[in-house]
């Protein structure tokens, strides 16, 4: 049942994702890409669990650790870069 509900959530999120983006001005293509790239760093939550949870040990923990570093780079770097882009975009206007 839980997996079904997750699937439900997945389907609804997919529709929502499609509906959210309709017409993006071309100057925003790159920032939007970059901004949603940062969101895709949500896998950091998984990495947190894997690296810090008691259930995980040995190799698994280290995989999680590597994952955590990578995901953090993605998240932190991603948001900052996007913000910089958008900042320039604004001042250009």
């Amino acid at each position, binding site marked *: 049942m839980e997996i079904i509900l997750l699937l439900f959530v997945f389907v609804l999120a997919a529709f929502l994702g499609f509906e959210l983006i309709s017409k993006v001005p071309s100057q925003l293509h790159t920032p939007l890409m970059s901004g949603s790239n940062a969101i895709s760093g949500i896998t950091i939550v998984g990495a947190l669990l*894997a690296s810090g949870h008691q259930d995980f040990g040995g190799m698994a923990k280290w*995989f999680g650790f590597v994952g955590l570093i990578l995901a953090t780079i*993605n998240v932190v*770097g*991603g948001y900052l870069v996007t913000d910089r882009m958008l900042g320039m975009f604004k001042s250009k206007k």
Partner: protein
Amino acid sequence: MEQFINISYIVASVLFIFGIKMLGSADTARKGNALSAGGMLLAIVVTLLKQGIVDFPMIAIGLLIGAVIGGFWAKKVQMTGMPELVALFNGFGGLASVMVGWAEFQRISASGVAGTAVTYTAIVLAVLIGGITFTGSLIAYLKLSGKMGGKATTFGGQKLLNLLLFVILVIAGIITSMNGNYGAFIAVLFVALLLGVLGVIPIGGGDMPVVIALLNSLSGLAASAAGFAINNNVLVVAGCLVGASGLILSTIMCKAMNRTLGNVLFGSFGAAAGGGAGAKVEGEMKPVSVQDAYYVLEAAQSVVFVPGYGMAVAQAQHAVKELGEILEKNGAEVRHAIHPVAGRMPGHMNVLLAEADVPYEQLTEMDDVNPIMSTVDVAIVIGANDVVNPAAVEDETSPIYGMPIINVHEAKTVFALKRGEGAGFSGLVNTLFFRPSTRMLYGDAKETVTSLIAEFKD
């Protein structure tokens, strides 16, 4: 506590939703990005509250290292280097999903209790998609940063290799899903990494932005798959949002280049196959939808309108003037190029455009516009035919050979607005309409232009 965490995840997801929506419009983009960052922070913090999270030093170190590296690169990068940096970040995100999947796989293996098929499948998907994302993004990064030739690279037997890898992948994937075989798992990972390389190498540097958008969508899906693997709803939702919106975004970006996604991804294969044969083919008249034309115009820097008798018949002059204004507001340089014999009486176009109040400054004579035609992004031919017929300059046997024309065929893209296959006054076939850079917008010119305007106004 678990309840609280999960409700916070819902809140975080809502923030992501708002964030993505707001990123899509210029006024709100920056705030949207901040919102989504807030959502991310929330998701991270509440995760730390989770029961069973014990190894805080490890987490702290990981977060610190990541934040320092990410922050440093983000601050340091030049404006021009941003796209490749995004590609790199995206690759890391993909690899992180691989790691999460791998860790979960390890955990299950270590626990001794076999996982369910669903979990294994989710893990396989996370590793597969994450792996492709990782190496694909890396290649994109290398191409964009010039560390690797930007040109599309193809080699013989590539298709065969891809096929082989695909077969291995399916077999290994199924085995892993069934019983969690470690070897098969590693095979999946390996193939995924290889596929990422092979998939992106054949694509030219100019198409990289689209590829990155697509890889970004994939990294979202990888996160979503990881979410299924570890049964975490925020991963599923956020990942899927990114996956879906990224897909739409890459489609939009393709349209702005007057391409299709398939053409971008597999175009060079076709080129490799069909290459060599240099014979000049007649081609066909390729229609384009108003929406796709919009995406191209929206991205154009310089636009030339070429009105003809059809504009007069359709009485499209007011609409044309308005479209011109919109394009100018959008940042494009707009000209109206008037051919001396356009229309059915001397000065026909002048009367109409003056009626529509097109400023005299924007009216350009043929001799002034032709030299810059090759720098023009889009030439919009509005019910003109004879006056843009390249036969006049190319085909010595043509009855109009020798007449100077407006050389729209030199523009990067030509949109030709006509009702159908009708010929012009002189009754000649116009090869312009068959050229690769020309797209036909069929229909009454006024209606077509009006719908283009509508597209611009959301």
